[in-house]
């Protein structure tokens, strides 16, 4: 019994680490721009594909690089490259789709719709370019299996969990301790006064998208290593769920997004283990809806005061 609980707990932690990594990206962008970046789940998908192409290229599948490079070097090269390229995609989308609208002073919801459209473009663009065949991610490092109290955990699962905690720590540090983080919080507080104080608004926003998208890329890489089948729609459902998790945690607060991701994962795993996996969405979303009705601004969110 205890073993099952520990095993399910580890599974929940692993699932939660993906949700949290994606939710952190939602949360950063939302915190700064008050924009729900609905394309974020698909940026996660793009991240997984970029990781796939990087890894296969380094393994010598395309013939540019001699095959025979050890797996861990490939991994060490793939991680930063994936994060960099994925953040490039995120920043590019911001530049071509969101910024012009922001400069025109369009209603916030039109930017949200543009984000939704961008997500669909990424999904179906991928489908049209690469075809419907699913890609399988190569094994880079051998799976080592550890035992904790009778439950088994692979090195990859452990890596995902540890990474998500490290990333959370890093982001928390950036946002609360550095000058850039202070600027981000300032933009979130008052977007009109900030440029007057000599803070470059656009650079801060680009930096936010850079951070958020690179986290999505990292999550995509980790996800692809653990569940090595990629398809163009893998990001949609995970992305929506991560968004819901971020809001339940209290969107705009990094701790909220992080905890919300794990909360959703624990709910899902508990429901799947005790009832059945078909009821997973029904019960876990009902509970989340209950939480939001009880605390209308999420677990960590603070109500904003508005002047009339």
């Amino acid at each position, binding site marked *: 019994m205890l073993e099952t609980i520990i095993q399910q707990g580890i599974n929940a932690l692993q699932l939660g680490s993906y949700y949290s990594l994606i939710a952190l990206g939602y949360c950063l962008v939302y915190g700064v721009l008050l924009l729900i970046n609905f394309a974020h789940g698909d940026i996660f998908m793009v991240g997984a594909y970029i990781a796939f192409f990087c890894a296969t290229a380094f393994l010598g599948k395309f013939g540019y690089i001699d095959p025979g490079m050890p797996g861990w070097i490939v991994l060490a090269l793939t991680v930063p490259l994936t994060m960099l390229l994925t953040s490039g995609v995120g920043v590019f989308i911001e530049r071509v789709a969101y910024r012009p*609208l922001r400069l025109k002073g369009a209603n916030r919801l039109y930017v949200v*719709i*543009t984000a939704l459209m961008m997500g669909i473009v990424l999904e179906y663009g991928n489908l049209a370019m690469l075809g419907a065949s699913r890609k399988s991610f190569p094994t880079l490092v051998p799976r080592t299996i550890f035992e904790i109290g009778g439950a088994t955990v692979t090195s990859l699962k452990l890596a995902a969990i540890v990474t998500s905690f490290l990333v959370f720590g890093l982001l928390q540090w950036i946002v609360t301790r550095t000058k850039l983080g202070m600027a981000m919080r300032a933009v979130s507080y008052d977007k009109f006064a900030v440029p007057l104080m000599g803070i470059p608004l656009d650079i801060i926003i680009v930096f936010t998208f850079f951070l958020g998208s690179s986290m999505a890329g990292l999550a995509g890489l980790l996800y692809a290593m653990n569940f090595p089948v990629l398809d163009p729609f893998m990001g949609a459902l995970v992305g929506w769920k991560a968004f819901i998790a971020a809001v339940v945690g209290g969107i705009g607060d990094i701790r909220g997004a992080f905890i919300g991701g794990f909360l959703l994962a624990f709910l899902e795993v508990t429901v799947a283990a005790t009832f059945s996996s078909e*009821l997973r969405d029904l019960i876990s979303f009902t509970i989340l*809806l209950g939480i939001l009705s009880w605390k209308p601004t999420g677990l960590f969110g603070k109500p904003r005061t508005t002047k009339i």
Partner: protein
Amino acid sequence: MSLRLTTPTALCALLLGLVGLTQIGILGQYEQTFLCTMGIYMILAASLNLVNGYMGEFSCGHAGFMAVGAYTASIVGVILFVGDPNFGPALLPMELAPLAFPVILAAGFASAAVVGLLVAIPSFKTRGDYLAVITLAAGYIVKSALENIEVVGGPRGFMGMKKVTLGIEETFAVPWMLIWIFIGVVLTVWLLRRFVYSTYGKGVMAIHQDEVAAEIMSVNTNHMKLVAFMLSSGLAGLAGGLYAYLIGFVNPASFTILRSTECLVMVYMGGMGSLTGSILAAGIFTIMLEFLKPLEQLKWVAIPMLLILLMQFRPEGIMGNRELSDVFPKLKRFYRFK
């Protein structure tokens, strides 16, 4: 005075013209289905515009309400006129079906309006993006619940509605669905327009502009939200019922987040708070869906790209928050209410 009766007359003429065209065989089955789909999209877009446009909330679970209406209307119709292994034999003879069809649609409307409470009640306290998540979760809950109810077929779906429409069309040899969808569109637009521009319904726009100020100015915001959400989801349920009888088959996979996204796109493409904008956008959107079909998968790249471009050049949508009669003020002579 006679000029003001032009709109009803024109609508009747349009309906008669459409029915006439089907009878002489110019509008075939394909064109009819296309027009019906367009009509259903129009109802969906106009009803979502009440919440997303006029009230300024961000509801993204419209497909969920549509699903409730579709399933209720299907089940009521099948229980009454077809019979099903799970529900027993048909209760009424098929001859009564033409009379009972409005009742079936009304059942879809009512059930979806009741499920709208799932969103309306949390909306009393929750605002903005938190409410968006509640609507999103409500959409997921409805879809997931339908997948788990075995009586209505679970994930496989539910069918038998085609027999009702075929039975009706045997009695009356007219394009039954086309007529009802036409009536549905007219009813939706009329209802929404009368509601939003009535003294009672002005509260909806007041909530959009400033919720707190509206409350101070004695708008009962909770009541207003309740009515708006229930009306919007009810009309989505009506669209769902019509959809179920048009296709003859419903399954949870037709009511995914992509369907809600389509509704959202039509509302914002047409312009927030413009009914004619929604109608226009729904028409354009359906035409785009149909004519870009040869592109296959690239269709879903091309349509969002076009919309993103539209947003860049016209960030307030096609009509902004204006109606057709604001653009062409002379049109106001042709109908009675403002």
